[in-house]
């Protein structure tokens, strides 16, 4: 009798827990603080979805209408919240539909973990139904990927996945799990978060010597210029960054990805860099004596022609990714490290300055741009509406508090040029990959990442049609998104280039649209269309005040162009303010 009791006790203290692979995935999510999953089920991921049935109270699953929508939504979630977005997709076509989003997340450094189902391990390589070599397809567009064929690997692999996706320079991670591993029962011990992989160093060592060298350059500079990118936002270093530029008194311009890291009305903010950026920042890049690049990667859309880029300047580059140093632009002082740590060190060493004369130069260029570009765009005298005046009204109505998710094209450039932001993580756009169709699904994810914010998806008539099926997701989950379509009846950016560089040979850029308001109505989403200036403000107000999602289509001028522009193959100081200058 006694012996039997003892045995029972032993079993109890050991507390064996058996889980399936599918359950282990969801346990890992809970341990990592995941609460929202964007996904689409299918044959090879069914065991995970079966497990999800019992986790419904702790994990919210948003059923999208296309896997690309799922990963864009996860990107939107990640970009507004700073957390890692999570995606489920099945094998084969489910997995290949993720590729665009993975590439977008890779180039824009967005932390996303994708779980794809895969056929049974014994079927790998047999061209089984919905089998695709997702690991090799996604290798160039993931920070890390891994195929799991045995359930016991799941806790450790997922811990690694979340650690890699979110640490250092973030990026997308894909874990492919064969169906047998999802079904397999195994003895689950516990989940251990990963915080060290010996072959992976998320943050390079900071070397004081270079901080000192950088500070010396800055202190001796008479025309220093700061350019910053998304690194400031990803590093949660907005405060540190502001402290740095405010003490050193240096004018600062943002890349499209760095936008909103400081409020757009910050006195030291001089505007946007790049092809359609502001006049002063582009021209004066070639007049500054020290160029301080913070968390940005010198994209070709920012630098224009490299052999005409800031040749006169000493260049300081702060970046967490060592491979970015000297990649496109040769650096005089490389400051490796997380800018949240390096910026305060630099701030401590720089002298308090004003650089008043230098700031005046930016203001002078601003006046020229106001006169030739900004004025006519924001206060047009023509009958046709401009995209700029829509954004201007939107600014007035939102007071810079909304999160704006843009698609890709002319409206994206106009929105980024003119939208006002008070808060970081408010400008969500596809900067690196330029993915049309990005806005609508990304906005859905953004709403889940920042539920208290007004989320406005701005898209063109082309881009919205690429992912318009996600209206179904909005309908089913009652997501509150404001959808603003700026319709110029053209694929406007391509048309602009054809006009300027291809003798106006408009080759397949005229695009017809459905009745967007009717389409929205079909999804039980309210909406209206305006084309008159007098009705615009009311329409925007109605959109913003409407309880629930709303679609507003604004008809704008058909052949308006975005200026200023750094024509391709030209240097940044060769930026032009009108088409006559090209």
């Amino acid at each position, binding site marked *: 009798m006694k012996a039997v009791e003892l045995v029972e006790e032993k079993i109890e203290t050991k507390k064996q827990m058996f889980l399936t692979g599918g359950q282990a995935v969801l346990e890992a999510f809970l341990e990592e603080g995941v609460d929202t999953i964007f996904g689409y089920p299918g044959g090879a991921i069914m065991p995970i979805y079966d497990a999800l049935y019992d986790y419904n109270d702790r994990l919210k699953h948003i059923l999208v209408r296309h896997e690309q929508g799922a990963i864009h939504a996860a990107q939107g979630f990640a970009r507004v919240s700073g957390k890692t977005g999570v995606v489920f997709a099945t094998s084969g076509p489910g997995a290949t539909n993720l590729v665009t989003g993975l590439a977008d997340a890779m180039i824009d450094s967005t932390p996303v973990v994708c779980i794809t189902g895969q056929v049974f391990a014994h079927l790998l390589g047999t061209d089984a139904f919905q089998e695709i070599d997702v690991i090799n397809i996604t*290798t160039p567009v993931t920070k*890390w990927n*891994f195929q799991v064929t045995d359930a016991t690997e799941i806790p450790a692999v997922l811990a690694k996945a979340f650690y890699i996706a979110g640490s250092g320079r973030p990026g997308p991670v894909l874990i492919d799990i064969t169906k047998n591993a999802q079904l397999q029962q195994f003895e689950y011990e516990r989940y251990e978060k990963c915080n060290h992989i010996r*072959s*992976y*160093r998320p943050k*390079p060592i900071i070397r004081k010597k270079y901080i000192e060298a950088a500070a010396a350059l800055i202190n001796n500079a008479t025309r220093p210029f700061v350019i910053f990118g998304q690194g400031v936002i990803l590093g949660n270093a907005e405060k540190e960054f502001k402290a740095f530029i405010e003490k050193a008194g240096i004018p600062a311009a943002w890349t499209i990805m760095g936008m909103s890291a400081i409020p757009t009305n910050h006195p030291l903010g001089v505007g946007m860099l790049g092809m359609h950026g502001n006049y002063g920042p582009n021209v004066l890049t070639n007049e500054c004596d020290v160029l301080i690049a913070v968390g940005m990667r010198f994209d070709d859309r920012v630098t224009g022609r490299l052999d005409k880029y800031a040749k006169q300047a000493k260049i300081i580059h702060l970046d967490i990714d*060592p*491979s970015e140093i000297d990649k496109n632009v040769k650096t005089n002082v*490389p400051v490796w490290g997380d800018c949240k740590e390096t910026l305060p060190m630099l701030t401590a060493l720089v002298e308090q300055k004003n650089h008043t004369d230098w700031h005046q130069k930016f203001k002078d260029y601003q006046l020229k741009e106001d006169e030739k570009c900004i004025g006519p765009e924001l206060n047009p005298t023509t009958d046709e509406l401009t995209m700029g005046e829509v954004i201007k009204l939107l600014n007035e109505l939102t007071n810079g508090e909304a999160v704006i998710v843009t698609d890709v094209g002319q409206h994206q450039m106009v929105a980024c040029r003119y939208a006002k932001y008070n808060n970081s993580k408010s400008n969500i756009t596809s900067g690196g990959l330029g993915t049309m169709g990005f806005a609508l699904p990304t906005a859905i994810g953004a709403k889940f990442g920042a539920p208290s914010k007004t989320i406005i998806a701005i898209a063109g008539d082309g881009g919205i049609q690429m992912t318009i099926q996600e209206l179904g997701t909005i309908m089913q989950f009652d997501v509150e998104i404001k959808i603003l379509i700026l319709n110029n009846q053209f694929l406007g950016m391509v048309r602009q280039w054809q006009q300027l560089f291809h003798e106006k040979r408009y080759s397949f850029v005229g695009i017809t649209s459905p009745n967007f308001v009717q389409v929205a109505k079909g999804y039980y989403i309210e909406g209206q269309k305006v084309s008159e200036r007098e009705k615009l403000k009311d329409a925007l107000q109605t959109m913003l005040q409407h309880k629930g999602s709303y679609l507003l289509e604004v008809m704008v001028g058909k052949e308006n162009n975005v200026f200023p522009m750094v024509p391709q193959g030209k240097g940044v100081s060769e930026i032009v303010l009108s088409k006559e200058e090209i």
Partner: protein
Amino acid sequence: MQKQEFTITVYTENQIGLLVRIAIIFSRRKINIDSLNTSPSEIDSVHRFTIVINETEDVVRKLCRQIEKQVEVLKTYYNNNDEIVWQELALYKVPTDIIAEEVKVERLLSQHGAKAVVIRKDYTVFEVAGHREETDNLIKVLEPYGLIEFVRSARIAIIKNSEGFHKKLKEFEYREPGEVATENEFLNQNEEVFSM
């Protein structure tokens, strides 16, 4: 900057798929890999890739940084030919009767340091370890005598001034590695940094 031969040495974890990750860093930039070898290293669990390409140093440095960025790569080095000791192994299959008949051939083979690996009635296989030119030369020599088959291995290389990877690995296993990941050409040029 002139193109020249560089040997890239990559210390990695042993992970399926890593070969592809490394290979696409080159193919994406349309750079041809002249030779690629994977092998164990001086450390049990650590693998060693040896990659030979013909490129400018600037390009090679950038490639190494991209390789080192991969999660499973521990460390990447690049060296020019003066900084390494290297060998390639070549095998030659020749009809045995010709070698037996022509004394000259045997003399040529020994001059080139060839060693017989297999001798059969119908053919003999010789091996030569050496640099590219040496193994190439022997092809020319053997061709008139009916060279049946030829194959050459990838380059393997030892870095002359390397202390091996044991110490480095210890640093990596530590939470905070003791040395930076990347080199910069301004590293030892303080005057450059301050010359305003």
